[in-house]
């Protein structure tokens, strides 16, 4: 499971941080920071929710 963020798309709505706080951090009025690029399989559900609920589709999950 490998995560990527497109910072041109990110608008800092922080939905990902709400879904998976150990994996994403969005500084206030900033853009997403991926804290764990290859999160553990045990986090799949919350990581997938973060990708799915991103309003600007800035996140992709590969592998």
């Amino acid at each position: 499971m490998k995560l990527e963020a497109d910072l041109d798309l990110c608008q800092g709505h922080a939905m990902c941080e709400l879904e998976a706080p150990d994996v994403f951090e969005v500084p206030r009025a900033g853009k997403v920071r991926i804290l764990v690029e290859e999160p553990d399989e045990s986090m799949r559900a919350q990581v997938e929710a973060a990708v799915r609920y991103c309003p600007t589709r800035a996140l992709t999950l590969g592998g």
Partner: protein
Amino acid sequence: MQGTWYDPYDYALHEDPYPAYRRLRERAPLYRNDELDFWAISRHADVSAAFRDHERFSSANGVSLDPSAWGPAAHRTMSFLAMDPPAHTRMRALVSKGFTPRRVRELEGDILRLTRRHLGPALEAGEFDAVADFAGKLPMDVVSELMGVPESDRDEVRRLADLVVHREKGLNDLPPAGMEAALVLAGYYQDLVAERRRRPRSDLTSALLAAGEGRDRMTDEEVVAFLFLMVVAGNETTTKLLANALYWGRRNPDQLAGPMADPALVPAWVEETLRYDTSSQLIARTVTEDTELHGTVVPAGARLLLLVGSANRDERVFDRPDVYDLGRDTSALISFGGGRHFCLGAGLARLEARLALTEFVRRVRAYDVHAERAVRVHSVNVRGFASLPVTVTPR
């Protein structure tokens, strides 16, 4: 726009607006209503593009068709929902410092506690009104919890909020009782803000007062406007979402069987309800410059409706859009808007709906909806039930 008519005030339309939306998408993707003085776009591509283009499609007059909520003063009760950059950018940045993902996440235990408080007695009664006894209580209590409204005031605050969002038959605006309630509620929030200014606590109201960018802070009026926004935008929409999920679930028993058997499917139930019958059916914008859409120039200053409810049923984006299907890909839904104005409370709404409906399926084996006694809300912006009688069989 031959033979195509769309009037968001029409009670017959409120029963089922989707055939009208389909006609608009097909025959009049840019629709003009001279009598009510608005334009409307209904296709997914157009609505989502308009959401992202805040320069041409301004929010400065607010986003609601209600005459009392339209105009340059809209931001006083709708905060940054009724602003453009740079005012919007400033306010959203300040609010984001208080309304953080962490703060929302930390509400989880409170949401569950409040869900059980309202659902418990209702389930014991066996038959109840899903709106009056449950869906209409939970979201406002969650808003109060977040703001720091003391428990002892919450029933009264909820009563006032209900009056503010209530609509009366034949009246296309906030009724006088609602105006009065809005003033009382604003006064209550002013007192709350003044109190937290003196003695800050750990609640959102205190966090908003403390939030700063350099030396810039929100004024008391700005904090009150944001608290009020949570009542008008964050409360009623979630009420409608919960009852719409119960209603459409029961109308589609083969789909409901999934989450009833496996609570892990509740998020899919929430998402498909958000797509299929969204609480916020339309959002208004003001066109800032002459803009050509589908071959017609919409003049600067015009009011343009973004028909979100229609976009979510656009056959260009969703396969068999009129089928309620929990297994479908709902990622293109635009129920929470898009662009800079993307709903700040989307995460809270989803969290609340998931927790409340998960608790519901854990405790209920089967339920019936008495559609013949259900009452719809007649609001131009919001779609859902004012009353939805249900009978439940507990597990």
